[in-house]
């Protein structure tokens, strides 16, 4: 699965190197955070269970084989539970049962929470940029601190951020993501050039969270 490529040691190392490469050109501080999922989506699981239960009901009603009457309640409940449980492990099913706008909102909220939890704002120039990747939703959210002015960075920045999101479609591939991450360097260098005495205030090392 393409998502698995994000979890390899080589991916972590490549991310660290890409962050260093970007920060070598700009005073902005880049942090990349990877999450398997940014929401609960329990409702989607319930919906999957319900649909499976309905399908099971129709099968039991119209199949040639007869079923004891008392088997219906247990079978329905069992199908519901099985469907819900199955949905927790099958990301495409969860995506199919949720609205894209809802997934984007979920990722946005999780990204902002991670911005606080990871201390992205603890830079002297308030120049932190969080690149938040959520694989189930196939979304990338870029959260920049107040010292990073999107207006100042211009259209190039907008395109670079859009390229990050595109790297998750139709399926996330790490190489595409890495290339898009490096694409942040040019607009950041233009608007926030690195000074010779810039201090790397947010470590580039990758660690589990």
């Amino acid at each position, binding site marked *: 699965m393409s*998502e*698995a490529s994000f*979890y*390899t040691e080589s991916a972590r190392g490549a991310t*660290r190197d890409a*962050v260093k490469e970007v920060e070598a050109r700009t005073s902005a501080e880049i942090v*990349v*955070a*990877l*999450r398997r*999922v*940014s*929401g*609960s989506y*329990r*409702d989607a699981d*319930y919906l999957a269970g*319900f649909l499976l*239960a*309905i399908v099971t*009901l129709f*099968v*039991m*009603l*119209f*199949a*040639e*084989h*007869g*079923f004891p*009457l008392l*088997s*219906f*309640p247990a*079978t*329905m409940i069992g199908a519901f539970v099985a469907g819900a*449980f*199955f949905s927790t*492990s*099958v990301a495409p099913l969860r995506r199919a049962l949720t609205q894209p706008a809802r997934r984007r909102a979920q990722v946005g909220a999780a990204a902002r*929470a991670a911005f606080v939890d*990871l*201390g992205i704002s*603890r*830079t*002297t120039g*308030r120049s932190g940029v969080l690149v938040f990747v959520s694989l189930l939703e196939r979304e990338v959210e870029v959260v920049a601190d*107040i010292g990073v002015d*999107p207006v100042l960075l211009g259209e190039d920045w907008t395109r670079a951020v859009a390229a990050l999101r595109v790297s998750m479609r139709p399926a996330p591939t790490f190489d595409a993501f890495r290339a898009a991450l490096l694409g942040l360097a040019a607009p950041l260098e233009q608007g926030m050039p690195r*000074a*010779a*005495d810039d*201090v790397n205030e*947010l*470590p*580039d*090392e*990758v*660690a589990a*969270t």
Partner: protein
Amino acid sequence: MSTPRRLLRPRSSLSSLRTSALPALVALAALVATVLVVTSAAARPGGGSSFGGSSRSGGGSSGGGGGSGGGDCTWIIEIVVFLFQLTFEHPVIGVPLDVGIIVAIVWWVRQQGGAKTMTDWSSGGGSGGAVSPAAPVVASSTPSRVARKQLFLVVAQADPGFSLVLFEDFAYALYAAVHEARGRNQADALSPYLAVEAIGHLSREAQGVTEVRAIVVGALRYLRTVASNGARRVEVTLEFEANYTEIDASGRSQSYYVVERWTLSRSRAARSRKPEMARIVGCPNCGAPLSSVRGNTCAYCHQVVNTGEFDWMVDSIVEVEKTKRPPQLTGDTAEVGNDFPTVIDPDAQARYQALTRRDPSFSWQHLTGRVALVFGEMQVAWSTLEWKRARPFVSDQLFQMLSYWMDTYRHEKMRNVTENGRIMRIELAAVISDAHYDAVTLRVFATSLDYTITDGGKVVSGSRSTERAYTEYWTLIRGSNATTRAVSDRVCPNCGAPLDISMTGNCTSCKVKVTAGEFDWVLSRIEQDDVYG
């Protein structure tokens, strides 16, 4: 404050819980309703104890699920039906088989996703919710020189005419103007430069005070530079170390030593003043006298001027220390920082080279010669309390500070004497060139005899026999258009007449101001090792 790790895990917020629970409840309700309908249908005459398939009774087939048509998926349905049948007719076999199939499917799916190794990660330290200790604390740990340089870089990016030298001139002038206004209880007259919070602080400090005078800024440090409000504004926090004298209603005067932190901000779209306007505290937009400002609008330019859109505005004033103590003139304080490594700006050499390319007559030899001249003249002026000797070689602000101390010593009938002073070596620390000035910071290693004596000749501190080694960071400034070779002789750099400078810094022969750096290097800042680094 560390944040509980659980906040990093996806969990339902209250709103999403409501969102997710409702469909689930609807699904369950529908399921139960379906079961009840089915159950009640079974109670109808002819429903029997088993129910399934079509409406046939005992045979035949009609409707879906049978073998008519749709043959592609029939075998899957048959397997599923078989499993269901096995589960309920032979549960001892069927249930474990069903469980095993479900577990196998889930295991296969997770194996495909590499679930065992799929641990969320992040760069930036990824400390599981706690803030990385490597991330610096803003403000107090940032060296002044770093925050100062950051201010220059951030502001000059949008305002090429910005000059740190002129900004500091303005800051000094504003500080004095604000406290003078405070003494008259007229701080609100400076509302174009003061936010409401700052005016409130000053009003409280004005209680019982009728005048503030003899305002001398001893040191100005940069604590923090931030681009705020989506980087549309620049915010800088300065720390003033100063002395002033307050006169109360009964005419009594009291001197204070104060440390205050001022936070100033300005729109990044604002443009810096011309050098000749740097110290004028007038309308932030057009420079008209402040008396022309009615409310928040200038009567001349008709602009609302108390927004920080045109010039720096003081957002807040925090009093760190205010003590009724006279200046400390005696006491032996050990030198700190002599053995510190020199703090050298990474850009220093490159900018120094750029300076020499712009002014071929500029050289290290002449610069250090100028430093030696300034050093020598200041030693004599300081020891003899003759300000005239130092006046040509120091900026207005530095001279004001030196004068204050000289007056204080004189008032206390003492002198601080330095003898046999000599420079041991000079190292380049930093160079900043802006639209109007070049500023070169040097670390000066020197030694001298240093002692304080009364008018009667009694030594009250220091030693007349043991030399004291010390180092300081000296910043010299010069106008960016100046190309005159650094002069080591005591002549006016403009007219060449023997050097005779008035209190205001003007040559008494040509009347031109020669102490602002337009012609030659003048000493602008002196910083100790523990402050600079």
